[in-house]
């Protein structure tokens, strides 16, 4: 009996959880039969189950709700607001009763009459009996159709650690077999065992994962109740609930998410009147989305409210004495927004029931950082606020790099590692400021921290031989970088992280420990704590505008990649734009010429640096350039070296795509204008629109206008082919058959209202072409 009851409680609670979002969706659209059916099935199931147990109150409540909903299903009643509220209240009451049943308390004789009366509403007592097929089996909500069983998490953990031990035993066995040498007749069964073990390990890892929509499902209800209390209207949009996350992680992010959502509804989204005045829809929109990239889950919470008032925050910080007037004057808007993390600051005018109760964003951020996550805020005044939370997929398995310092092995979570550089190549520059060394990496000066020194470990082997130093460039959550010097870098592992005892956690330098294949324990570094502990200033996280302007010396020393173009010219491209360099067969190039494309892996990119006429060599070197969003490939014969741009750049006339010519190591090199490159190819990345060049001045258009049109990313349409745009002369009136958009040309330079664009006004022509392209694409 006890087991049955436990099962009943767990099942009911699970269904309640899944139902929360269904109810709100049903309220938004009472005609939604599928949702209504889901809710109806729930109360019906509860009522049915009550038959096994002695819960008269629960039975009466669910019975009343079932009746009311049955009427709606039969079309005898409409789902008005009062009914929805009453149904919600019943679900809440059922939830509360389930809690009590679980605690083992007997349900007291509470009065459910008002609730039942509310359910009945003004509709006449249901005289027609609810026509439900008797004895229908309990149906679980449509969202969970898989067969499931419930297991205590401890059991899964136990299995997990058992499997980990089997892996260690397997590795030990492998070592012994190797030591025995040669043919011991065990290889085949051993490799079979090994493969099976890997499978079991994967499967058991997956049992710890859960879809995030279980968490998301509670948000619509939360927002509904909050906004009702505040007299606001807020829609919730949930995206990508199918992303899976470690169940422990889901529990850990629940509170931070709820806090941010409360804030968004309370402070972010304006009242309907304010929104109307601001020209927005009365109902605010809150979007909660999840996305997985690699081993990181990004959770975004976006509202279209009033945004964070940076100046008011600054004023509060001033009033509270957290910042001085001078400091505030020097702050950018972004820096002011980050004041929300200061303990004790809130933009809320008054403490409401919902937020502003002393638990601030500082606590939220600290809680997220505690388990290796990060939180970022972006806000536009009047447009809304976006919170981005990044958390690792799981707490227990961490892709890591193992390194050695002072003769000891440590693990470093790979997510922090931006790059590994070595002084062996001789390409690294160092500066010393006091005792602190700085490494120049991609145009940034990064403070160096020696892991051995930090830990007070003796320098084993490496000695003073700085030439052989290895540096891991580490990126902390906030865009703070530093270089960690280590003696050796071994390998990449998927490490199973185990918690450390509090005594060791106290020193704050480790996130946990793990075991190598031979069973040796290895400490996993908390690289953020090590970095900040060694004095990496947190303020560096955003190089403020002032800081950029104040360091012209650094900006002058632009790092460039020197190459030989396909035409044999020596060229330079800003290093910061280069994402990757690879050798590619020329067969990957399509349509040689201005509209060339190249297939790189799974990407098709516009290819620059190829002329229309010349034959391509069999193999090319291709530089993948990126601006953070788009990519353009640049073809070269070979990459020469990486150099610093120190001399002046003299502009070249008539060579679009070139920023100018400069001297590098005494020889001239053409500096590629990345801006022009992306401006041109960004458009070309969309399927090319066609342009017809025909009319009276046919010859002029082809020879004069053609290059501009192609430079703007258009394809020149063949004679008689329908085209996206066309140029028409001022004189000839129509003649625009089969044309989606026409650009009118004028042959008079004067600015005549209503006339077309002067045919030699290059800038206006380009602008018109780009505008037409955007309009057509939209």
């Amino acid at each position, binding site marked *: 009996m006890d087991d049955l009851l436990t099962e009943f409680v767990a099942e009911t609670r699970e269904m309640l959880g899944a139902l929360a979002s269904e109810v709100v969706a049903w309220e938004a659209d009472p005609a939604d039969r599928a949702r209504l059916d889901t809710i109806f099935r729930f109360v019906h199931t509860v009522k049915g189950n009550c038959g096994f147990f002695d819960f008269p109150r629960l039975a009466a409540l669910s019975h009343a709700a079932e009746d009311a909903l049955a009427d709606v299903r039969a079309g005898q009643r409409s789902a008005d607001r009062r009914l929805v509220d009453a149904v919600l209240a019943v679900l809440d009451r059922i939830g509360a009763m389930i809690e009590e049943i679980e605690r083992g308390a007997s349900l007291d004789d509470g009065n459910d009459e008002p609730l039942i009366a509310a359910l009945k509403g003004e509709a006449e007592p249901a005289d027609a009996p609810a026509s439900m097929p008797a004895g229908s089996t309990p149906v679980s909500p449509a969202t969970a159709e898989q067969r499931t069983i419930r297991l205590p998490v401890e059991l899964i953990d136990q299995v997990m*650690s058992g499997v*980990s*031990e089997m892996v*260690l035993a397997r590795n030990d066995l492998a070592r012994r077999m190797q030591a025995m040498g040669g043919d011991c007749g065990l290889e085949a069964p051993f490799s079979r065992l090994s493969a099976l073990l890997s499978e079991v390990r994967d499967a058991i890892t997956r049992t710890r994962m859960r879809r995030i929509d279980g968490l998301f499902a509670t948000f619509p209800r939360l927002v509904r109740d909050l906004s009702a209390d505040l007299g606001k209207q807020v829609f919730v949009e949930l995206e990508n609930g199918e992303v899976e996350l470690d169940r422990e992680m889901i529990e850990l992010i629940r509170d931070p998410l709820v806090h941010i959502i409360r804030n968004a509804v309370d402070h972010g989204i304006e009242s309907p009147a304010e929104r109307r005045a601001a020209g927005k829809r009365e109902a605010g929109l809150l979007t909660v989305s999840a996305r997985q990239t690699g081993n990181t889950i990004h959770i975004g919470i976006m509202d279209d409210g009033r945004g964070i008032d940076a100046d008011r925050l600054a004023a509060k910080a001033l009033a509270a004495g957290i910042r001085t007037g001078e400091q505030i004057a020097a702050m950018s808007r972004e820096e002011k927004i980050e004041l929300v993390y200061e303990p004790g600051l809130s933009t809320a005018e008054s403490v409401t029931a919902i937020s502003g109760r002393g638990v601030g964003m500082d606590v939220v951020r600290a809680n997220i950082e505690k388990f290796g996550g990060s939180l970022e805020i972006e806000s536009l005044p009047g447009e809304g606020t976006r919170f981005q939370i990044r958390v690792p997929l799981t707490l227990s398995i961490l892709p890591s790099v193992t390194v050695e310092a002072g003769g*000891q092995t440590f693990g470093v979570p790979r997510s922090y590692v931006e790059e590994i550089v070595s002084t062996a190549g001789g390409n690294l520059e160092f500066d010393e400021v006091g005792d602190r060394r700085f490494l120049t990496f991609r145009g940034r000066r990064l403070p160096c921290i020696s892991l051995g020194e*930090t*830990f*007070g*470990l003796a320098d084993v082997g490496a000695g003073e031989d700085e030439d052989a130093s290895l540096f891991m460039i580490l990126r902390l959550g906030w865009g703070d970088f530093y270089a960690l010097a280590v003696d050796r870098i071994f390998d990449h592992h998927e490490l199973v992280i*185990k*918690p*450390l*005892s*509090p*005594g*060791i956690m*106290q*020193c704050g*330098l*480790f996130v946990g*420990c793990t*075991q190598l294949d031979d*069973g*040796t*324990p*290895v*400490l996993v570094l908390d690289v953020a704590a090590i970095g900040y502990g060694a004095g990496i200033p947190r303020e560096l996280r955003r190089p403020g505008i002032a800081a950029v302007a104040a360091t012209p010396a650094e900006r002058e020393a632009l790092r460039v990649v020197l190459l030989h173009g396909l035409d044999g010219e020596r060229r330079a491209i800003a290093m910061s734009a280069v994402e990757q360099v690879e050798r590619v067969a020329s067969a990957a190039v399509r349509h040689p010429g201005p509209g060339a494309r190249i297939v790189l892996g799974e990407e098709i990119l516009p290819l620059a640096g190829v002329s229309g006429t010349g034959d391509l060599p069999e193999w090319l070197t291709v530089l993948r350039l990126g601006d953070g969003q788009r990519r353009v490939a640049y073809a070269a014969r070979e990459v020469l070296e990486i150099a610093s741009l120190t001399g002046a750049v003299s502009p070249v006339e008539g060579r679009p795509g070139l920023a100018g010519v400069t001297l590098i190591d005494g020889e001239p090199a053409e500096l590629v204008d990345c801006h022009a490159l992306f401006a041109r190819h960004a458009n070309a990345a969309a399927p090319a629109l066609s342009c017809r060049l025909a009319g009276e001045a046919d010859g002029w258009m082809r020879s004069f206008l053609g290059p501009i049109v192609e430079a703007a990313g258009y394809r020149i349409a063949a004679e008689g082919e329908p085209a996206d745009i066309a140029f028409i002369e001022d004189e000839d009136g129509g003649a625009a058959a089969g044309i989606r958009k026409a650009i009118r040309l004028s042959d008079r330079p004067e600015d005549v209202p209503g006339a077309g664009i002067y045919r030699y006004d290059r800038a206006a022509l380009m602008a018109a072409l780009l505008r037409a392209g955007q309009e057509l694409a939209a």
Partner: protein
Amino acid sequence: MSVMMLVVVIAGRRTGLPAPAVNSVIDLASITPVPRAAPHVAGLAALRSRPLTVIDCRAALGLEPEGGAAARRRAVVVEHEGHLYGLLVDAADAIVASRAEAGPIGADPGPGWREVASGRIETEAGALLVLDLAVLIQGVGARAAAA
């Protein structure tokens, strides 16, 4: 009511740990040091797949190290607040039955010992100081610093 006690030798003195609290007694093959940890934390070891925090009991008592932790390999494994600890001791040989309940120590047992002892117990093998696990794991020095 008789209690079983494990006789543990620390710094040449015989002390006792309640036997039910002891998971096992092992000889550690290797200890991974933990940089910047408290001095009495000798490092990490592994008991099968579980990490073991190794406590140098002599250092935990605030006594001068003698021979260093490296010389001692015998460890008493205990579980405390969900974590496994290995207590490095000189020896841990016998399990003896107590003759009476643990009582007050009676007289000051000396520096280090006075913080780490929770009482005195009479056993078949004579009187033993009963160790307080929590204090031992935290370390007497750390406790003094916190106070």
